[in-house]
């Protein structure tokens, strides 16, 4: 039976109840601010764009989920996986990329916590946070920074020889081809964070972690209120 304050809601369910503002961030990341990415089906891009405009991205949470998981199959370690990975695998890869130490005993909530903690430490120099609201606010800032960086590199990577390479290798490994120019433009730290597919998956997992934290806190507040009303 489902728990009252779930930590591990399936991604589709989680996104179906998220706010439009939060889903817009994911939509922009997936579509590169509606400019499109090499491996993004143009029909999917149009679907996402239309729903974003109507504020109804919640109704295509399955599409968003599939696209996010598909990006997870693009890093080198995922070369031998099937077409897409589970969200748990994807989040675990991101946690490892950020020098976290996820284990098999961690659930998705715990892994996302590792991702948030590592990302805040790495990109914002934040080692601790006072409360959940501060955490969510800081995560939002880091996501904004990473989305901006991902867009800059993505634009370059999606042109010329990179596209041909992608075609030859198959899948979305094209993102490995980010040129040195992009590294110089964005700085080594950001490039390390957003290199290969991680430039998409790191901010995506961070954004999803933020959405899950907010949902958890809202569910927990409802649970607390139910109990308090018994007094």
């Amino acid at each position, binding site marked *: 039976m*489902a728990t009252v304050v779930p930590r591990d809601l399936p991604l589709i369910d989680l996104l179906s109840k998220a706010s439009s503002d939060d889903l817009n961030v994911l939509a922009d990341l997936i579509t590169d601010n509606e400019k499109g990415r090499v491996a993004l089906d143009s029909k999917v891009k149009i679907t996402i764009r239309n729903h974003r405009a109507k504020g109804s991205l919640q109704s295509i949470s399955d599409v968003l989920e599939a696209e996010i998981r598909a990006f997870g199959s693009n890093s080198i370690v995922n070369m031998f996986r099937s077409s897409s990975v589970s969200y748990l695998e994807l989040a675990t890869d991101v946690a490892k990329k950020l020098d976290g130490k996820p284990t098999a005993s961690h659930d998705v909530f715990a892994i996302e916590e590792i991702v948030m903690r590592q990302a805040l430490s790495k990109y914002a120099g934040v080692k601790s946070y006072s409360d959940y609201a501060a955490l969510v606010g800081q995560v939002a800032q880091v996501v904004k920074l990473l989305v901006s960086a991902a867009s800059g590199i993505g634009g370059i990577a999606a042109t010329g020889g990179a596209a041909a390479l992608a075609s030859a290798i198959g899948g979305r490994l094209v993102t490995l081809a980010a040129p040195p120019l992009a590294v110089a433009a964005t700085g080594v730290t950001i490039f390390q964070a957003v290199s290969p597919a991680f430039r998409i998956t790191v901010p995506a997992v961070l954004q999803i972690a933020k959405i899950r934290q907010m949902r958890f806190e809202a569910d927990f507040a409802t*649970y607390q209120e139910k109990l308090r009303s018994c007094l």
Partner: protein
Amino acid sequence: MPVNTDPLVRSLPDIPDVLAKIQSGVYRLWGGVVRYASGTDKGGQIVGHLLFPGDSQQTQERLQQLQATLSKGLGSLQNGMSHLQQSMNVLQGLQSANLVLSGLNLAVTTAGFVIVCKKLDGISAQIQAQSHDIVQTFQLVSDIQERNLLADEAQFRALTLTARQFCEQGDVEHLKGLITPFHKEYQFTKLVLEKHAPIAASNVERLSEIRLLQDRLVNLGLMMAHVQMKAGALKYSRECVVQLESDLTALNTRRVEVLICDRELASKINHRQLTGMTNFLQHGKHVLPALTYQADVIDLEIRNPGLLERASESKEILLVAA
């Protein structure tokens, strides 16, 4: 000196003036007490006390009649609306308490006492059926001392049977001798519950045993109040009821305090478990108006000896003038 209670006591349906004044907001209900509403010349002053029939079924019917009569005032009167609504809420609380406990007069009438005895017998049978889990629940209190549940249960049953016999025979002297063992049983049950209340997980995982023990606590408290009353110690009878009310409130408050702080546990509780927990907590909350009412009734009996006898025989709600 015995007081002639007749001029003081009247059947509520015979005094429509009181109902009209509750409707208009001049009077207001506080538990089983009718008072002048705040803002009136005599704001807060007691007009009289309601005494409900001894039989729970009749109490329920009379409460519903009273609610129906008062509700006619809702919507048609602008003045005193909030006062009337509050009085309706009081009746609702008493109705819930009556339903939950199967009687508002359990501690203060002989009929109620018999019901409490039967409930305790039922609880004992359930405790025995769940003896394994109950032993584990008790063992949290002391791992060193192995408790002999059967011997304990036998002692408890003997106590309730003896109390019932002495009450029916009016054997006051022997009843007094039972007060200490009653206190011991009550305190032991309360201590077990107090040990578990601050353990958030225990409140969920051991809910069925805790529910049984709390039922026992409630009925023990009511029985003890009755025994004290039969033994002529009305002041202590009232204290038993007030203590029970305070203990239930404290236990529920502690449980809620720990549960709302435990995020990890919250993430493991399913909807069925939460419903079970909130039903249990609500049950404890719904008992409280009945306890407040009974404490007031015992207070009335202290001031007007013989009132209870009359109330238990009546089929109507009585108003006892202040």
